[in-house]
């Protein structure tokens, strides 16, 4: 069902954990649908993502996409991180079963949500970066699809 890469990132997820006093935190998804992702960024004064951690409640694909997404944005500037798409995450994992594609969307949204949080705190405006709509604190009832 899953590629070897997905299984690898699921069984040995990279960057699991939390960052205290993180520069930016984003939580997306909702428990009703069975997927929640939270990403923490530690961003330095040059706007480079020095460290990244995640926690995910969800299926194998959700854990693997979170893990891969954190790997892809680590060491990147916030502007570069913004260009990491769900497609890139999926390709890096050698694909996902069709019913699991929404997990990769969630990973992209989690990155954006954490970047938004950082930008808000630091009064930065980036074109194309919008307020996360999928944040669990927003609307519990909102269905993803």
């Amino acid at each position, binding site marked *: 069902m899953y590629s070897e890469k997905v299984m690898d990132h699921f069984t040995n997820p990279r960057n699991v954990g939390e960052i205290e006093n993180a520069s930016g935190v984003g939580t997306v998804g909702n428990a009703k649908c*069975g997927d929640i992702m939270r990403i923490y960024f530690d961003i330095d004064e040059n706007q480079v993502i020095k460290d990244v951690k995640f*926690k*995910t409640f969800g299926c194998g694909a959700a854990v693997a996409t979170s893990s891969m997404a954190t790997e892809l944005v680590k060491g990147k500037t916030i502007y570069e991180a913004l260009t990491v798409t769900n497609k890139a995450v999926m390709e890096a994992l050698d694909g996902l079963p069709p019913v699991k594609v929404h997990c990769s969307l969630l990973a992209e949204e989690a990155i954006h949500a954490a970047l938004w949080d950082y930008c808000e705190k630091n009064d930065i405006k980036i074109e194309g970066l919008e307020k996360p709509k999928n944040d669990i604190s927003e609307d519990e009832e909102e269905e993803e699809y």
Partner: protein
Amino acid sequence: MGKNPVRIVIYKKYLYRKEDKTMEEKSFIYLDHAATTAARPEVVEAMLPYFTENFGNPSSVYTFSQKNKAVVTECREKIADSLNAKSNEIYFTAGGTESDNWALKAAAEAYASKGNHIITTKIEHHAILHTAKYLESKGFEVTYLDVDENGVVKLDQLRQAIRPETILISVMFANNEIGTIQPIKEIGEIAKKHGILFHTDAVQAYGQIPIDVDECHIDMLSASGHKLNGPKGIGFLYIRTGLKLRNFVHGGAQERSRRAGTENVTGIVGFAKAVEIAFCTMEERSQKECMMRDYLIDRILAEIPYARLNGHRTKRLPNNVNISFQFIEGESLLIMLDMAGICASSGSACTSGSLDPSHVLLAIGLPHEIAHGSLRMTIGDENTMEEMDYVIEQIKEIVTKLRAMSPLYEDFMKHS
């Protein structure tokens, strides 16, 4: 070559192909007996001659084939006895789903002149629920009864749901996900009192617990072979004598013309053998399975916090354990159990291919996030207490690991 050229593979061992194309033997712990079971070696042995030397069509006139006709009759009697039914009330089908389809569609059609209302429950198998939805599209009205927090049908609600135009009540004998056994006798009495047909999907219960169709006033009953160590592709529908159902599959005169098509003789022989063994060993098996079931439940609930048992604690199938672990998701749990060599199942959305978790777990009132974290383990008599110990240790480790990466658990711990 010996008389029996097919080697019977030892149960609990399976062969799988690795990338280097070599075959490797691997043993695993199978805890998904509600999904399917392995045919017993005795069952396979009984079936083998009917693939080859005894291949005759029971409808043919010559002696060679007439022997098979007699064999089918004998099997039918054996199965009828197991339910306290008559042999001409047993109609072989391709399995539980076909039996459910037949029962609902044929009863609806046959009694449409009397009324268009059907009563069933929210926790039925999809073979019933989707057939009921189909009947709704054909103009029938269906009431889906609620269940209580243990998954038991509310009899008061059933009584209130009955209308003059109600023609059929269909309630499963025992639930496939949470194992809850329904008050079938009481439901049968209510149906009888109101002159309404009563069907029960007994796919999970048949061979596990005693069933008497007369005592429970059952008019139709579905069962399947592969849930009780018989072959796949064979099942039956019990239809009480006198029920005026139309023929389901049109063709030859097989199954009293109601379900035409050459008999699946091998399947029938295997099914009857499995039934014979299941009923001979029921008491002993049930005791053993209940012991393992209770051990699993008690230890998991005692040793893993934020876990709850789904389904009734005692009115439950001997082989069923269904537990929800808060803050984690079922598919992750299943994959990790699989890697530890344990086969189980879950009611999470990710295992059903939709965004919604199991309709059964939602019907007993679980919130979505807790339903997503459910684990079903269904025991068989070949399982051992040593295996249960191993399984419990693995579950403890995996749940801890998954909770450590769960944002829900993190929030819960911070706020408590």
